[in-house]
């Protein structure tokens, strides 16, 4: 606990020595973003995040819309006094948990690995440019 750390002034650790200042070189980012790994990361993320977002927003708003406009249908009792409205609301919790874990799995197995590769390449590219 040396207590010397300042707000964001610390030298980054485990980042192949890249600091924000060094990265401010012209067209550096356009260049790394054109690389296939970054493109692949973009595509992988879009393939997962866009459909998931559309899905969860649709699934979620089905609840207030159905409950609001079709209260009697949603009030149909299914198990004892438990109705569709309650079960559908409950299912939202499991939907959210399942989607969150799917994202976690995808991110750990695909996104993080690609990100690590991209960071390594960016460091290399920077070293070449600096040389």
């Amino acid at each position: 606990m040396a207590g010397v750390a300042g707000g964001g002034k610390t030298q980054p650790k485990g980042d192949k020595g890249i600091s924000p200042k060094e990265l401010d070189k012209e067209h550096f980012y356009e260049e790394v973003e054109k690389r296939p790994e970054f493109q692949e990361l973009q595509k992988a993320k879009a393939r997962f995040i866009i459909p998931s977002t559309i899905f969860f927003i649709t699934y979620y708003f089905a609840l207030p819309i159905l409950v609001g406009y079709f209260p009697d249908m949603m009030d149909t009792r299914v198990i004892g006094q438990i109705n569709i409205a309650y079960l559908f609301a409950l299912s939202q919790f499991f939907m959210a948990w399942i989607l969150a874990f799917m994202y976690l799995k995808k991110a750990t197995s695909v996104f993080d690995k690609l990100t690590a590769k991209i960071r390594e390449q960016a460091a290399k590219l920077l070293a070449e440019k600096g040389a």
Partner: protein
Amino acid sequence: MVESTLGAILAQTASQSKEPNMTALAFFVSFVAITMGITVWASRRNRSAADFYAAGRRIKGWQNGIAVAGDYMSAASFLGIAGIIGTAGYDGFMYSVGWLVAYLTVLLIVAEPLRNLGKYTLADVLAYRLKQKPVRAAAALSTLTVSGFYMIAQMVGAGSLINLLLKLEYWQAVTIVGVVMLVYVVFGGMTATTWVQIIKAILLILGTIALTILVLAQFNFDMGRLFTEATQVRKTKLVAAAAKDTNVVMINATIPSKKDPNFPDDPSKVTWGMLYIGDGTGATAGSNGEQISITTGPTGVVPGVNITLDQPLAKDFTKGALAVAPSDLTKLVTEAKASDTTVVVSGTVVPKAGSSFYIGNGISDGAIGQSDLKIVSAVAIKDDKGVVTGSTVTLDKPLTNDYAKDTIAGVPTKLLFDAKAGSTIVKISGAVAPKSKADFYIGDGIGDGANGQKGIKVVSTDVGFAVSLDKPLSRDYAKSTMAGIPNDFMKPGGRYNSTNAVAAVPAVPATKDTPEVPAVPAKGKGWGALDLISLGLALIFGTAGLPHILIRFFTVPDAVEARKSVIWAMVIIGGFYIMTTFLGYGAATLIGVANIGIVDSTGKFTTNSNMAAVVLADKIGGEVFFAFVASVAFATILAVVAGLTITASTAFAHDVWLNIVKSGHEDEKEQLIVARITAFVVGAISITLAILMPGANTAALVALAFAVAASSNLPVIVLTLFWKRFTTAGAVGGLLGGLLSSVGLILISYNGPMGYDAPFQLENPGIISIPMGFICAAVCTLLSKPEATSEVKYAEMYFRSETGVGAEKASVH
């Protein structure tokens, strides 16, 4: 709000008393002592700005997940949702669902880019590629507004809670919360705040699990029985004890004003049903009570007042006998002469044409009066402010005598039921209670040899509805026993509905002796579905714009840990929110809707839906558990308030002071001093505001904070991350447009100062203000010139937000 004046009102259902709860005090003090210890420890670690604002970014993902859950499960979640489910049923669960699903927006779109780009505040991300000063100023304003709304809601909840437990005055309670919270923030910074959140989240989860188990135990762990019972919730209770073999009971109810948007168009269409009476602890409404049909016809339910007298009746009186408390009832305003057909009487209620009319000096031998009169018409007399102070009444026949000013005159109140000699309790018609210590007269009262009793005084009164039953009760019931026409709390629409199918108390059509009493409806009129959708929008998009939640992601080392913390938070928050249904339905069925409230130090009971979980703990968990749950609720509020204060002070010190006033010339020591001073100012302002609005509803206020966050912050976060063309004008326009439209709509809604007459009739402005935020941001961007720097820096920002290159690192200690 239903108010009653008897301290003993909850005596047999709960241990709530007029005395401060010492066990709860002990729990409070130990929680504060432990967290103060943490604050001392944390203050030694606060060396830099990153330590103070972001706990040195050394918090682990799982720890931050618990802290996020702690920051999120506020008074609105624990007290508010249980309260809405407990008083309105299913619709309260909609809050639970929205508040969990909202984390998918945080997880999939916001959390990781935010951690990769930001330093201490939301404005760091928003101003990344735009002009610093205008964007930071607008973002700081938005942060302060959202946190302010949120904070007031928490303070109001804390005030009620301490009021309940320690019987302190509301302002004292709010001040104590404010001061303790300031100590955490000013000395402990984000590190102490984080650990306070973690401890509180664990306590809250344990308390909620225990309470859920206790609720289910009441139903022998048969959830089906809980849900069955929830379909037969009585919203009212007995306002007077009912003895075996009587066929009349008095239940409480409020009589809505005509200004209420829920005022029914045709109250006479409400039909009678079964009255369910019982303490609700049984598996069905009948097991510890019974179900009896209400006598059909207009006299089945009438407004009445149960009056306790200071001495017993000397003889029997039959139903219909005149029974009045003249000091409170209407009197002649000017003297009336024999042969007059028009008289002027006092009173705030204009009598109806067709009602019978009484005039005379009441009870005494030789009393003179008339009771055979009828009202032909009555015209209100109003003062300069438009308040009704009396009526000019035209009668069907002339008076037979002269009457002096102040002679009792008006629609007579009568005994609703026979009263036996020796009894000290009478039930009279009418919806207006005489004041305590008022003189009370009973008897037929008219003419020479008037047959009655005087010299009695009123001890106490309970206003309610007298319900006639078609057969007598089979056993005795204590005051406050749940009783009423059952409401189905599993059915959607208890709060947000368009048909208003279920009335809490049915309407009472006017009869010749009683004024018309409308049904007491559930809240919400005509906009059920739109209200739900608007609320849903605010809930699921608001979380991703809440500054005090978002800055928690700056306390972890990197984006991967930020992601983990969202997952942890979702597991904890989701589990907690599912349990809110057990707390809410438990409160509705086991305590009864009308018993959810606070007994204050004067013994007065006031209904307060925020107290559902706490009063439930009192009834089914015993005194120590009640004290534990109440102090957990208190800890909950304290922790959230601390989180909000540090958010607001960071926004001011980092965005306004450092980046605007000092143009980015960093001086850490100075900045930390500014942050601490800001915390004091923010604390003082919110304490003052909370003291000024003690009646505010905590869940509604928090939902409004979500609407403001979703309208002003979220559009700008999304657009700056994903739209290259986005400009400074777009960011400022989006922030201010969303902020002004949401706050503006709140002000012109019935939550605002205009009340029920307000032009905007949706409870939550989200459905209009969130699109407004997006539209303002997009239109302002397209109308402004493209910003070269913004577009050049976009590539850099995008790369960094996706990969975490150059992100702020954990500080090394």
